[in-house]
């Protein structure tokens, strides 16, 4: 199960992706539990391969576009761990994208809609039209999620650095 929160900011779009092959819960719930009891697994060292595998799987069906043009990832951060009380791994990704200066239709698409839940929130971006669907609620089974993007006002945006 994959849970995706799209946060729209003035200069960037940020995806918070929770993915666990083992169990699926809303990302906020995962976050809350993980932040209090994130436990290392019984292994001596975390597996980079595991993180890469999970990260790739988490992002594989997702595409963020503006007017059909894919946005380029500006940064990707990933954290993996084992769900407390179970043996299931999970990965949480924070992926940022630079938003284009102009307006357009911002689309978050999933090739795996049946197992993807999408939510969105506006972080004082001032860039979204009034026709946006209700924010801070989960939308299940949607193949694409559309928001109308407006040009930002004020000073120019600066791209963020890529990191892990």
């Amino acid at each position, binding site marked *: *199960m994959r*849970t995706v*929160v799209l*946060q729209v900011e003035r200069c960037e779009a*940020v*995806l*918070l992706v929770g993915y*666990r*092959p*083992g*169990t*699926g*819960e*809303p*990302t*906020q*719930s995962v*976050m809350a539990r*993980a*932040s209090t009891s*994130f436990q*290392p*697994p019984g*292994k*001596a*060292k*975390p*597996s980079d*391969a*595991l993180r890469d*595998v*999970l990260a*790739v*799987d988490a992002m*594989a*069906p997702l595409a963020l576009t503006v007017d059909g043009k894919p946005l380029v990832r500006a940064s990707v*951060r990933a*954290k*993996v*761990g*084992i769900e407390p*009380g*179970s*043996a*299931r*791994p999970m990965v*949480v990704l*924070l992926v940022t994208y630079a938003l284009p200066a102009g307006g357009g239709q911002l689309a978050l698409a999933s*090739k*795996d809609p*049946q*197992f993807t*839940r999408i*939510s969105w*929130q506006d*972080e004082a971006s001032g860039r979204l039209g009034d026709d946006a669907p209700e924010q*801070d*609620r989960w939308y*299940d*089974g949607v193949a694409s999620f559309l928001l109308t993007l407006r040009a930002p006002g004020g000073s120019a945006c600066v791209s963020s650095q890529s990191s892990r």
Partner: protein
Amino acid sequence: MRWLVVAALALAACTGDQAPQAHAQRVGALEETIGGPHAIGRVGDYLLENDQIRLIIADVGPGRVNLPFGGSLVDADLVRPGGAGHGNDQLAELLPGFMFVGLNPTSITIDNDGTDGNAAVVTVHGTGNDLLQMVGLLDQGLVGPANLDLEQTYRLHPGQRYVEIDTTVKNTSTGEHPFPFLDPTQLDDLGFAVPGIENLQLSAPMGQLPLLGGEQDLFAPGQAGFNVHFAIEDSYALAKGFPAFPGMVVDFLASRGPGVSYGLTVPQASSNYVNAFANLYANQPVSPYSMLIPFTYAGVSAVFMANPPATLGPQEQFTFTSYFVIGKGDVSSVLDTIYQIRNTATGTFGGSVVDAQTEAPLAGASVLVLDGSNDPIDQMTTDSGGAFLGHLAPGSYSYQVIANDRLRPDPVPFTVAAGAQTGVLIQVAPTARIAVSAIDELGRHAPAKILLVGQFAPQNAFPVDPRTFLYSLKLGEKQRTTAFDGTTGFVEGAWWTVDGRLDATVRPGDYDLYVSRGPEYEVHKEHVTIAAGSFQARQVQLQRAYSSDGWVAGDFHLHAAPSTDSGLPIATRVATCAAEGLDVAAATDHNFVTDYAPTIASSGLDGWLVGIPGMELTTFEMGHFIGYPLKVDPGSTRGGEFVWAGHPPQDLFDQLHTTLAGGERQGLVTIAHPRQAVLGYFAQFFIDQATAQTYTPTGLLGVFAPYGSEFSASNFSYDFDAIELITGNHFEDIHNFVAPNPLPPGPFPDPQPVPGQVVIGKDGRPTFPGTVETWFAMLDRGLQPTGMGASDAHHTLGDEPGYARTFLFVGHGKDTPGGYTQADVVAAIRAHHAVASNAPLIEMTLGTAISGDTIAHSGPAAVQIHVSAPSWAQPDTLTVYTNGGAIVATIPITNTPGAPTDFTTTVTLTPTTDSWVVAEATGAMNMFPINSATELPPLDATVIIQALSIGLDLSSLPITSNLKPSRTHFSHPYAITNPIRIDVDGNGWTPPQAPIPMNVVRGGKRGKAPDVRAQFDALPEWNP
């Protein structure tokens, strides 16, 4: 008789005069679809047809049959006279399986519509998703579906009775994609923390998942024959370990069914899965066409045929081919086509089957063709003239004719030469004939069940397996149920009549004739000897066992032909219900809204039986949910439209309560078999039997827990009206499992079991929690789902309707034909005026209150309890429970042997707080032959998991433990009332425990979500 043989051969040589053609199109009108018992094709689907066969591929979207995804092959039949819509589709569905990854379709294309004279071609495009979330980690580790595109192309050539299927896996990533996707160590890292996994070399088998429908008997040539289910389980003992998955190796898979049959085979290919690991399957016959059947479960068979390359490079793809064949109803018509596909030289084998005494031709007889080991390799069904014909590869064989009302003859050898005809005239032993006319105590020709019970030799008594001497499932003979208790009785024949009249042919012999009409009647029994060719007639009057004024008996969980795993005609279903003394029958087919009312009327049963339309909303791993009364939507090919895959329980309940019921909360929702593994709602949501609330599973249970958000604990909904306390003969699910005394041979996982005590797991909870204990916990917390009994009957003998059943109080004097209505029945369930039972009736009262009522009462409460039962189902113990499941009294029930139970007692409680009281009656006597034993273990997901566990240590998983409830046993009397709630202080009934917090707030307002960057940063870095 020689002319009969010649005529049969000549008829078989005739062919149609239509020019070969093939055609593909989108279905534009329902009239273009196929029709038949399981036809669900509809507008928007895709039709593939030629001059021989017709196929429907479902459009994209949620699955409409048993599995979560659309895009599957859902209908298949021969071309029939009368054209479109007049078909005989019995296929449930067929779809590709990549381990347990299914094809979730994104689009379907018509690649060639056939107008060019070539094959018509349709392709289903999609991605891979878990069919069974419980094994999602295995899918991830073996297949890694996230970077794969999947396709299934159906290619139908003109003039052929098969469709060629190309299944393609494409790596869409920029890196290499190995198979298995992860090595075992990574699988362990991924969370598949199964002891021993790191030492395994695995494989990623791929193939097809056919659900051939309940009418179809599966057949595999060789050791299995028609005994596919048990032969697969037997094959597990032959497994030599991974990377070869355990299972049965077959040359082809076929079926037998009324008027249509199906088959599956593959071409020779370097990617053949079995041949890739031939050394590990060396103790099974391996051919270039071998396929592996690792399991068949809930009507779904896995047929693995392809072993993908070790690695797919970027954008590389892998394709394997299979053929889905449609036959005329027997195996032979399928095998004929398979020979044609393989270009095998053949000769013909045909002839006629006649009665040795009368020389009358035998229609519908089964002619088995056996190999040198006397294992069946082909089967032909005789036509109305007793004739049969099929093709065989050159060789020496023998034949054996199987007819259930005749003694089985010995095999007779014959040979077949290429291009030559072999004809035989087969004379089979004569039958005997019996006629019975039964009336009830009022002289009415009431519905009744008639049984002939024989005796086998004492040396074959239990525990000797009756399949080894009494009947052969391999040869396709019917099961003859036995007493299963060390005695020697077996049921030779069983008939459920609508009017107590029977005229039937039977296998000659000495029998006891039983006539019954459910638990409210005594059984009539007398001895009859019926010689070959002779006739016996009997007149019988039934007597009531007990009066049940005001109570009607209903079975609210019944299956018939619309269910993909039943195949029983609806007319037979309603006859069985009436003959078992049921007054109410709710139709609850899997994902199909059925109404018995028209068939009840046409069967002349209007006065005896009230039908309630309904459905069992069947998810793959969330549980089964029964809804009734529902409205049949005549515009839907499955009686109504609904969704389940990916939806939380509340969505399912809302559909059953309202959408499908035709009005706001007009329908009732019952939780079916809540504690059955995989199929039960409480089991899948991990409901603690002590608190009736969810808990988080740990260890291996957590590994095999479904992961979808719909399964999150917060999505568990209590918005149901009833639960099944007893389902069929699943006595093992009623109460918490208690360790037997003495214990079976160990070792056992800690904590060590104590004989006679509830078996507890590491988490302190009962390892096999009971439904009744869970229900008691709900009663303690103020919930009051009505406790029900139901049969979940899919067939007839061995799976009888009405055992269990629910007695409902509809009002004094109303339990007469025409005296009660569907509304009375629904009202009784809503009022909890119900007793779950498989025979005894418990009438419990406190003052004016009956079971299900709440009554204001202070001081000592004298609860009156009256137990009634027929002499063939006498309970011997009465147990009375109250708050917390505490036992108030355990009272022996006094009985007179051979007489009905008529027992009355008073149990006095002095509750100091508001309380509930429930009465339960149990007995040890065997209800055979009226209610059959469970002799053969029911097939469930346990089998799949066990099959996959060879080489792994799953001993901590309850279902694989060697300390678990026996699932084979004879049937014994059981009944339990709904509670009387005693309001001690007169200020309304207050539950003894705090109510369960209902944590699902639909549409509730939430505060603003925190910044996602802050959420991510708040996660601690993982620094081992």
